[in-house]
């Protein structure tokens, strides 16, 4: 048999599916079987691919998403037609808004009954059209390998994103020649709007040279592009301080002297003030989202802007920039760095440092212990206990912001959080994906009592797959961020914000997962230590102060510097002895 014959084997569509995934480097998939995808499941046993059975298809996509965020590899989720496919939509939109490379595979009814409202038929490519980077319907086995290879190329290239491949049942059952190499995906030509003219590089260099108060805005694109070293070189050589977006946390070491911390709605006060005072913003792989700009009319009024992004449609979308550099961040900075001369930034760095004092006085960490357990303390202790080296998956809400403020991320891909879509219920499944991708890393879930209940059936997945994941529930009995907004903007009308939870310790135990409750600060470290020492999953229910607020906070429509700060005489955080 010649080599040529060897490559051309006749397989069923189902076998082509797995063979293509295997050849694309996929070792794990997250999924849930159903009628229209059963031929694929039938063929799975012939391939060295681990299938993690989920409890809901939304979680399957979040797991693939967490897998991709933790590892940088494409995550794969698989579900059946109809309800299986529609359940995926929230997960797909989550990946879309955060530009995460995910390939979703759905079964579809037979091609002969397409469009007839057959059992479990839904137009999933129509439904997901606005929330995927691209999607495909495959009705013939011979088209499958090409579509899948296209899907992987599209998912991981340029600005990454989710891609869905909808495969009819008959396409899975029919046979076709399989030739992985011949099915290679080719993109017709390069993107003509992606170009970085030497002129633009020189203009950027000149702006940096002449700036007195420059600032690097570090976004998610740094991690996608793998431009950590280039951004660090830029910051260090030109002595430019770095502010991170939520998804940019970890792209620049938190402990680095030039790292200021997080910007935006719940960013550090000195960071937001610095942005408003800056005369140059160098936006690296970020998109001036409304959560980081506050009111656009008053955003960074003194600053010229350099915007480096791979997506031309982000240029001048929210903020008008003077120098757009459209391309892969690492490549753009590689072009720029040789022209960059060292400069002295000490006066500006000193000015920013002076702004930190006030924040330190108000910092909940520095207030005397009043016997209450605060989420910020829990997260700060967790950071100490794990030496800042854990992979943290957070949900959405107050705990997410406290995590961003008090867990200092040194490494990229160590914070996994839904930034753009703000999907509650994301943390637990995303952590499962992260643990599957990086089994040697310590993985923690930090979730609120509200969001955790959205996807907590995945505790069964953890138990079934015997995943060593630790879970910290920040339990305040409220939908905390809702309550905070109601407190600030709706006259404390806490409509539908109090939420009843089950006893999470008993819940975990029902799944065969060890658990403990923590009510005081003194118990935090020892319980975290017990969780870390335990081989296997461990859940801690932290019963924290019920009506605590994330500070600083920017009201919707307010300017970035008009932050609501933690009152310095807050009776909640100060004991009688301090008054």
């Amino acid at each position, binding site marked *: 048999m010649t080599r040529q014959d060897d490559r051309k084997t006749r397989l069923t569509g189902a076998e082509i599916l797995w063979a293509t995934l295997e050849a694309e480097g996929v070792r794990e998939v997250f999924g849930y079987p159903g009628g229209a995808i059963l031929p694929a499941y039938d063929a799975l046993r012939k391939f060295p691919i681990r299938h993690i059975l989920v409890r809901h298809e939304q979680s399957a996509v979040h797991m693939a998403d967490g897998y991709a965020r933790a590892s940088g590899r494409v995550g794969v989720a698989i579900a059946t037609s109809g309800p299986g496919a529609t359940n995926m939509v929230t997960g797909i939109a989550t990946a879309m808004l955060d530009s995460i490379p995910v390939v979703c595979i759905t079964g579809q009814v037979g091609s002969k009954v397409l469009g007839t409202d057959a059992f479990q038929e839904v137009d999933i*490519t*129509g439904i997901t*059209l*606005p929330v995927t*980077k*691209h999607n495909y319907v495959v009705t013939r086995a011979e088209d499958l390998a090409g579509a899948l290879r*296209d899907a992987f190329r*599209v998912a991981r290239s340029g600005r990454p994103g989710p891609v869905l491949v909808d495969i009819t049942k008959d396409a899975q059952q029919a046979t076709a020649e399989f030739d992985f190499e011949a099915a290679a995906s080719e993109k*017709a*030509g390069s*993107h*003509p*709007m992606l*170009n970085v*003219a030497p*002129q*633009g590089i020189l203009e950027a260099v000149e702006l940096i040279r002449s700036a007195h108060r420059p600032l690097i805005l570090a976004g998610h694109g740094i991690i996608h592009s793998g431009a950590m070293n280039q951004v660090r070189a830029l910051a260090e050589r030109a002595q430019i301080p770095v502010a991170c977006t939520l998804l940019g946390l970890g792209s620049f070491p938190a402990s680095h002297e030039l790292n200021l911390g997080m910007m935006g709605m719940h960013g550090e006060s000195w960071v937001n003030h610095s942005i408003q005072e800056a005369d140059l913003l160098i936006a690296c792989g970020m998109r001036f989202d409304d959560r980081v700009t506050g009111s656009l009319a008053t955003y960074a009024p003194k600053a010229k802007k350099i915007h480096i992004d791979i*997506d*031309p*449609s982000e*240029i*001048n*979308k929210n903020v008008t920039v003077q120098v*757009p550099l*459209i391309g892969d961040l690492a490549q753009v900075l590689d072009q720029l760095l040789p022209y960059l001369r060292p400069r002295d930034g000490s006066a500006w760095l000193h000015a920013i440092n002076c702004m930190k004092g006030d924040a330190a006085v108000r910092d909940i960490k520095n207030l005397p212990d009043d016997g209450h357990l605060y989420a910020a303390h829990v997260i700060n202790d967790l950071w100490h206990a794990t030496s800042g080296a854990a992979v943290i998956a957070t949900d959405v809400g107050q705990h997410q912001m406290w995590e961003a403020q008090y867990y200092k991320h040194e490494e990229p891909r160590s914070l996994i959080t839904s930034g753009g879509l703000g999907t509650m219920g994301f943390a637990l499944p995303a952590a499962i994906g992260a643990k599957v991708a990086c089994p040697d890393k310590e993985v923690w879930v930090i979730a609120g009592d509200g969001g955790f209940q959205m996807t907590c059936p995945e505790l069964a997945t953890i138990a079934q797959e015997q995943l060593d994941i630790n879970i910290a529930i920040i339990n305040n009995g409220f939908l905390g961020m809702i309550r905070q907004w109601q407190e600030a903007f709706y006259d404390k009308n806490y409509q539908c914000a109090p939420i009843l939870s089950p006893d999470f310790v008993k819940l975990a135990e029902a799944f065969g997962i060890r658990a403990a409750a923590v009510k005081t600060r003194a118990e935090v470290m020892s319980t975290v230590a017990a969780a870390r020492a335990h081989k296997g999953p461990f859940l801690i229910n932290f019963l924290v102060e019920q009506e605590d607020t994330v500070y600083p906070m920017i009201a919707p429509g307010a300017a970035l510097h008009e932050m609501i700060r933690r009152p310095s005489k807050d009776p909640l955080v100060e004991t009688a002895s301090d008054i």
Partner: protein
Amino acid sequence: MQHTFVAYVEDKPGVLTRVASLFRRLNINISSVTVGSSERSGISRMTLVADAPPAAGHRIMASLYKLENVVQVDDVGRFSSVSRELALIKVATTPKTRSHIFELVNVFRARVVDLAPGSLMIEITGSESKIEGLLQVLNENEDRVLEISRTGRMVMRRGHHTSRVLEALGDVESQNGTVPEPSLALQEEPDEFEQKP
């Protein structure tokens, strides 16, 4: 302002939906769209006309390029180009009105393509303003227009340009946002057909 884009797209099911959906998402109304085959096999040519703020042109073009099925986009509104539209107009007639409608048709260099008792059909090709002009005069004469079918705008840039020239022009535009002067070969020529009657 009115933007006109020519997009080369893959000739596949669902591509029109993707393009239309993009405009819907941006909350921009498409005033006209024409689609047909192009000089390249497997590639359709789309002419899209949309009303949007002047600054939206870049974003629409960039968003079009984000669609996997879009091969090439040209913002032709910024260049010297020929724009044509075809319309079929059915007008109610009586033996008395028929002859002056024939006169109008001649003046507008249109053609009568169907003649029936009580009505006739006019085929007219030209710029939108020319078609609007004929409709205005018909209305002025109180000739009752029974049906109008218009193709929407088709646009082609003047002169000979290869994609390489386009790329070079694109470089200049994206860097400083100005529209380059058309080269000599692209200079506007007087067009008798675009004169308004």
